Structure formats: C-alpha cells, structure tokens
C-alpha cells in the first residue's frame, strides 16, 4: 500500500545498486527466495537450514536434519514447504508451519540439485552425481523413485546410424541439472556433454533434445512465466534461450527448434560464472563470478552489460534475485554471509511537512488573493466542516495488483519468539537499543550438546521449535 506514496523515480528503478545489508547465520552455502519474497532460505555448511525474514532481517526458523553442507533449496508454490538437498546424500521436505520434517529421501549418490514440482509439493526431480536423474514421489511414506533418461533423443535417421563410439559416449553422459516447467508437465534437464533434454513428467520419456555446447551445463533457471531460460555452462558462457509454451497441447516437439538468444561472456578476463539468475521480470540476467568479487548484470533487450555489483571482499557463489523487487542476495564464499543489494531511497524533504515543495530553482511566491485576509475563526471552522461532504469508503478493500503470479495464500509463517535467543550464531548480540557487543566464542552453541544428548536418549530432536523455559 506504500506504492502510491513512494517517489515514482525510485519505483522506476529496476536494477539494484548498492549493498543495503547482510544476513548472517553460520556459514551459508546456498540461498533461495520464497515465491512471495518475504522469506529467504539459507542452507549452511553445518547442515542447518535457516529461514530469514527479509522484512526484519532476522531468523524466522531453523531447521535441523542434515549433517553436511546444504547443496540446493526449493520452495513449494504456497511457500509452506521447503525442500533441501544436502551433501549427506539426502533430501528433506520441511513443513514451515511447525518446522517438522515431512519426508526424508535418501540417495546412493551425491545430489547436484533437487527441485520441487510446482503444483504438487510431494514430488521433486533431482540430478545425482554419476547416476540417473530421478523423479521422486513422496506422497506415501515410502518414496517412489522413477528413473529418468539421460541419453539424448535423436532424429529417426540418426538413431539408425548410431555408431559404436557414439553409443559409448552416450552411455557416459550424466544429467547435472533438472528442473520443472511452471506447469509441472515437463522436466528440463541438462547433461555434462552440453545436451538439453525436455522430459515428459508423466511418461518419463525424452520429448526433445538440443545440444547447447560441448561443456557441462551447470545450472538452468527459468523466468516466472517459464518462457525464458538461462543456462550456465562450464565453457564460460551464459546463454539465454526463449522457450515455447510447453503446456500448449498443440506443441509439436518434432518440429521444435530452440535458438540461443544471447551469449553473455567476458572476453577480456575470460571469467567463468558461479551461479546465474533471472531478474523478477526476466529483463536482466545476473551472474556471480568465479575467483572474483563481482556480480555482473546484463540486460536482455540489447544483450549489454548494465551493471557490476561490487563491494564485497570475497568471492560470491549463489546469487538470487528477489521475485518482484530490485533486490539481489548473494552468498559470500569465505565468510558465509548473505550480501544484499538494493536501491537506496533518499528521504524526500517534501514529505516532512505538508507545505514543503521540492523545486528545481528558486520560485517567487505569489500569495493567494485571500491568504492574509482576517476572517472570524468561527466562520472558517464552519466553512471547513461544510466542505467535508465527500463520500468516504473506509471498508472496501481494493484488490491489489499482484506483483507475482503467486497470490497470498492462507499460510502464514508463525512468529517464534525465542529463536534468536535460543541459538544465535551472530557474531554480535544486541544489548540495548542500537547497542551491540561481540558474542563470546562458543556461546549459543549449547544446542550441539543438546542434540547429542537427545540422540543418546533415543528421542528425536525437535527442530528449532523447542521453547526455552
């Protein structure tokens, strides 16, 4: 509701500019914004998943269940469930209402990425290290894993003349990244040989394959509409590809031709990219750089570099763009902090008093005809009251134009009152209004002993919801 009062020039800005804050809870390795943009999930190197409240920059929930570093995070569409994949070879589906583990799925290999189905939070697709990708259905207590193919689909002619060498090569190919299209009907998968496969999510067949390059596809991201795709490949090129509407039943996969729209690269320094993301509208592409401290932002209309975000003294790994604001979050590799870039809003002086006006140059004041007339107070008062004849409606709530396609659902994150006090890994603690002191080492780590003790007793640990007496 603040939009009508905010400076329109500030609202028109769509690219973040300066560091406006940083979040810290342990050593973060992976982050992801919720669909409504009020929460940021952060996976830590110690296996704890922390959910930050972006409005307060505080920790809203801590989820304990992994024992190794968190590899990837994925939110359900209603923002109630969160899927985390860890380097302990398991995926956990969390219910943020009470912080409980809904399902735990174990794998026989390390997980590259696990992405939730957009319509059904009990399904997810995962790419595994040197193993076949899987589509997991967790509806029942025992999760069902459907293996997905990796070998690219060739045209019928190619299929007949397949050589022995090629067959051997195909066998060595593995899928490195998977994700769902927004409808959830198809899975887009990238392989280590630069192939892009589009897999039907119900029949588990490859409908279409496309060779992007010769190198490993590290990451694929879609815009919210699913009509644009950005690819990070190990050949140091970030590609954007417009996609057809996969939910269209008339789409003919045999006639489909994908074309690379832009190739973003740094020809001078030959930078390689750690992580890529689309901006909220898909207008910009942001990428964090390997062995470098910058985030590059390209604009997709012309394909030009528009901004380099800097200010950190460390390399940045995962970079994420807020679902509807010019707001970028990135993880520092060395410190594990989450850095936040946004737009600084200057205070408008005209807002501080009703008779202040912001002017470009000096303006000569022309008084109103009756400005200094002396009139009886009573009459002024009466006239003023008589003018108040307009109709006011204080009840009707106007439907707000949703900034994302995700309407505000019923789920509201519960506010846990003692989360910070129970175990804060922050290096500073508040001791008063605006007063902070450095935390004594080891303080706030009691939960570690706690967990061991509970494990010894055989009782399952309560995930961050335990209330302190």
């Amino acid at each position, binding site marked *: 509701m603040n939009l009508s009062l905010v400076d329109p020039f500030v609202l028109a800005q769509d690219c973040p500019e300066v560091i406006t804050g940083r979040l810290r809870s342990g050593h973060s390795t992976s982050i992801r914004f919720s669909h409504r943009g009020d929460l940021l999930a952060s996976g830590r190197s110690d296996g704890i998943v922390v959910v930050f409240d972006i409005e307060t920059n*505080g920790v809203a929930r801590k989820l304990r269940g992994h024992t190794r570093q968190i590899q990837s995070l994925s939110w359900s569409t209603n923002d109630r469930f969160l899927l985390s994949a860890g380097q302990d070879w398991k995926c956990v589906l969390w219910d943020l209402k009470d912080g409980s583990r809904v399902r735990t799925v174990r794998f026989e290999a390390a997980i590259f990425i696990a992405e939730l189905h957009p319509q059904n939070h009990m399904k997810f697709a995962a790419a595994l290290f040197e193993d076949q990708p899987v589509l997991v259905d967790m509806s029942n207590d025992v999760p069902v894993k459907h293996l997905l193919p990796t070998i690219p689909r060739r045209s019928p002619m190619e299929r007949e003349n397949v050589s022995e060498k090629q067959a051997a090569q195909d066998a060595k190919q593995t899928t490195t990244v998977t994700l769902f299209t927004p409808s959830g009907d198809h899975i887009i998968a990238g392989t280590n040989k630069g192939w892009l496969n589009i897999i039907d999510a119900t029949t588990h067949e490859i409908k279409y394959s496309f060779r992007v390059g010769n190198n490993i596809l590290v990451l694929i991201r879609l815009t919210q509409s699913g009509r644009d795709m950005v690819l990070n490949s190990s050949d140091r090129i970030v590609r954007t590809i417009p996609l057809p509407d996969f939910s269209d039943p008339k789409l003919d996969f045999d006639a489909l031709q994908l074309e690379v729209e832009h190739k973003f690269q740094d020809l001078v320094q030959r930078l390689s990219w750690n992580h890529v993301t689309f901006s909220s509208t898909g207008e910009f592409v942001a990428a964090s750089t390997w062995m470098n401290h910058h985030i590059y932002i390209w604009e997709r209309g012309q394909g030009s570099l528009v901004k380099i975000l800097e200010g950190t003294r460390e390399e940045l790994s995962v970079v994420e763009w807020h679902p509807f604001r010019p707001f970028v979050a990135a993880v520092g590799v060395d410190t594990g902090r989450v850095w936040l870039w946004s737009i600084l809003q200057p205070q408008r002086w005209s807002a501080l008093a009703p008779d202040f006006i912001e002017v470009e140059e000096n303006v000569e004041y022309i008084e109103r005809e009756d400005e200094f007339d002396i009139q009886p107070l009573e009459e002024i008062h009466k006239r003023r009251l008589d003018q108040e004849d307009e109709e*006011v409606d204080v009840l009707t709530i106007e439907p*707000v134009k949703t900034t994302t396609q995700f309407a505000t659902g019923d789920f*509201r994150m519960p*506010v846990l009152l003692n*989360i910070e*006090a129970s175990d804060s890994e922050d290096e500073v603690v508040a001791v008063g209004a605006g007063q902070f002191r450095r935390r004594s080492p080891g303080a706030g780590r009691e939960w570690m002993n706690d967990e061991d003790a509970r494990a010894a007793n055989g009782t399952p640990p309560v995930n961050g919801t335990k209330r302190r007496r």
Partner: protein
Amino acid sequence: MADRMELPKRSREEDELEEDSVGPPRKRSASRSPTGDASPAYRLAERPRRYSNEDSPHEPTYYRDRDRSRSKSRSRDLSASRSRSKSTSERRSISPHPTPPPPKPTELHYHPTMILRGHKKAVSAVKFSPDGKWIASCSADCTVKIWDAQTGRLEHTLEGHLAGISTIAWSPDSKVLASGSDDKSIRLWDVATGLAHPTPFIGHHNYVYSIAFSPKGNMLVSGSYDEAVFLWDVRAARVMRSLPAHSDPVGGVDFVRDGTLSVSCSHDGLIRIWDTATGQCLRTLVHEDNASVTSVIFSPNGKYVLAWTLDSCIRLWNYIEGKGKCVKTYQGHNNKTHSLAGAFGTYGSDPPHEYAFVVSGSENGDLVFWDVSSKNILQRIEGGHSDVVLGVDTHPTEKLVVSGGLDKAVRVWRDHTMPPKPATEISTAEATTNGYDPHVLPPNPFGDS
C-alpha cells in the same frame, strides 16, 4: 482579460439562479407537507430527493452520490441478491429504479451487556483479540487482564510491569499480547499460559505510549514519551529501526493492513506516515490549528487515517491524495486533556449495504458513535462510564463494543438494533406452535362432554 473577468461573474449568477429556483431549505420542508399547494417548480426540484430520509441537510447529497458511485456494483450482484431475498424485495416499496437502496439505519442501539470489574486503578486501553474470543484491558495498576469476550470471565491477570500500562496490542494470531508501560519496557505475554516472555523489549527512554503489531506479527511499532518511534523485530526482541519521528511525545502508532506503512502522531500536532521497509517518512499531515494529536489508527481498508486531537475533534484524513487532506471531522464529544482512543465498526446488513461508524469515548463519560460519511451521531451512550472513557474497541465480527475508563470498569455493549426479519422466519415460528399459545393447554378431546 475581459473574458476572464466575466467568467466567474456569470457562474455566480447561475448559482444564484439555481438557489432561487430551489428555494431555501425551510420552504422545501414545507413543500413536503401533505397540504399539496406546492408549485410545479418545486416538484421538479424535489424529484432527485426521493430516497432521502429527512433528518439532516447532509443526507440528500450523500445519497445521490452513493447512488451514482454504487450503481455499477449493484448491477453486478443484482442476480445474486434477487434470488437470495425474494421475500424482502416484496416488502420494499415500488419505485422507478429496479433496486432502491435499503434505508440506511440512522441510529444504533448499543446496550450494556457486561461490566467487568477487577482493575484497582483507571483502565487505559481495551482491545478485542483478532479472533474475537478475548478482551484484554490494561490499567494504571500495573496489570493486564484478559477476559472471555462472551462470558466475561477473568481468564488471566498478567503481572510483571513495574509501572502503569498505557497500551496493549494483540498479535494477529491472538496468541500473544504485547503491553507497553510507564516502566519504559514492552512485554510480550503468552495468552494461553498467562506468562511473560522472558526478554522484555528495552530501548525507550521514557514511557511507552502506544504499540501496534504488523499484520504478519513479525514487527512491532512503538511510540513513546521520549519522542521516538521504534520498529522492533519481534522474534529477536531488538530495535530494528528507530524513526526520528517527532519533537514532542508520540501519542499513537499503527500499522496499515498490509504492513508496508506505519503511522505515528505526536503532541506536536503532526501525523507522519512511514515506509516500514525503508524507515522513511512518506507523508506528514498537519491540521492548521496544530492541535496535539493523541491517537491515530488506519481505516479498515488502509486508505484513511483517523486521528484524535485535543480540540475535541476526531479527523479522518485521506493521506494518499495530493499532500493529504482532512476529509471528515467528527465532533460531539469532549476531549481536551486525556489521550482518548477509539475504533472503526460496521453496521447495516451485508457488504453492499454495510456502513462504517467511528466510536470514541468522551471525557464526560459518554460513548459516541458517528456515521463515517455523514458525520451524524448515530448513538450517544450518555453516562456510559462515570468518568472519562479512555479506550474503546469494536469486536472483529460481532456487534460488540468494549470500553474502559478512569472509573476502573470495563464495560461491554451489544447492539440490539432489530434486523428486518425475513417472512420465512415468522412462518416457521407459527408452524412450530401450531397456532396455539404454547402456554395454554390444548382443548382436551376426552374431557367430559
């Protein structure tokens, strides 16, 4: 130049002409009398006033405006309302328009239902919980009491503050109550157990005057006698942002319904609207008389703010339009020294014909209800309390009002305005009694003949 000079003159003449043809209001009422000697010119002028009921000179324009603005929406729910209320539409008077608006109630009938006694000193604020189950009241006797809103049973007495409590606020899930006290601290209380959260919010340098929760419950805004407005991170119990707000004690604070804006007001006469996310002042509202503003709330839809000032006025501000504009002034209560607070409520029937009222206490012990649009007093509970009424709140769903004041009592009022009974209800009542008076025995067919 000559043209420009003439223009306003001409318009003035036209105005005069119109006034002549309509005639002074005194004559109008005469023409309505059944004597029937009105001239044809009068009848023409009368025509647009057909739906107005004759209580105030404000009403006619008000209704005509409403007709025009609402016409679109009404045509949309025409089909629904027709099928739903056949019986009621039959009873409506026939008129050239398809659906005349049902008469707007001109008065409310709030009657006392409960008196909750227990506070040893003046009650400074009363609040219904968002789920409507509880009433919380805070007092100068350093306690907060939680009462059952239906039965009036005292559920908890929350003790822990070291000085009188000026303000309370419910969290949106109704599980936590926050209280701000003259001991400079804000405390959170678990409503289920009645226990205080171990860490109080400490940071203000003087009395905490007013607090409000954000709609998500993750933030709290507080205004204090130390002239500062603080935004608190509720989870961590720490000051998130300090707003350099005012140059006099802050009287009231509130959050808008989506949490993006907060409002604060002060004894320096300013009302400031803040961007919650950036902490910047987006708008400042000042009335020309610069009277001290003691309390402020957002309207239920968040488009207006309602402010209590020490010149015995309550003003409704449109803060969005232009530089902010006072659109209504409600008068009729006394407010010169105390910091009164009130609330918005609704009356009438279902949403298309639901109207809003403003309710506030008064320093002579009255409770006053105003219609938001017409500024008419809908009800005045005279002598509702025996002393100043400081706090008033309305129930989120039911027609209930709670008030508290210097006479140490918390009083609950219920509206007994009879809703127009649908015909079906009467017929079923007749069927159950079978036409006989239930208290009289039916004639005995086996009696002696």
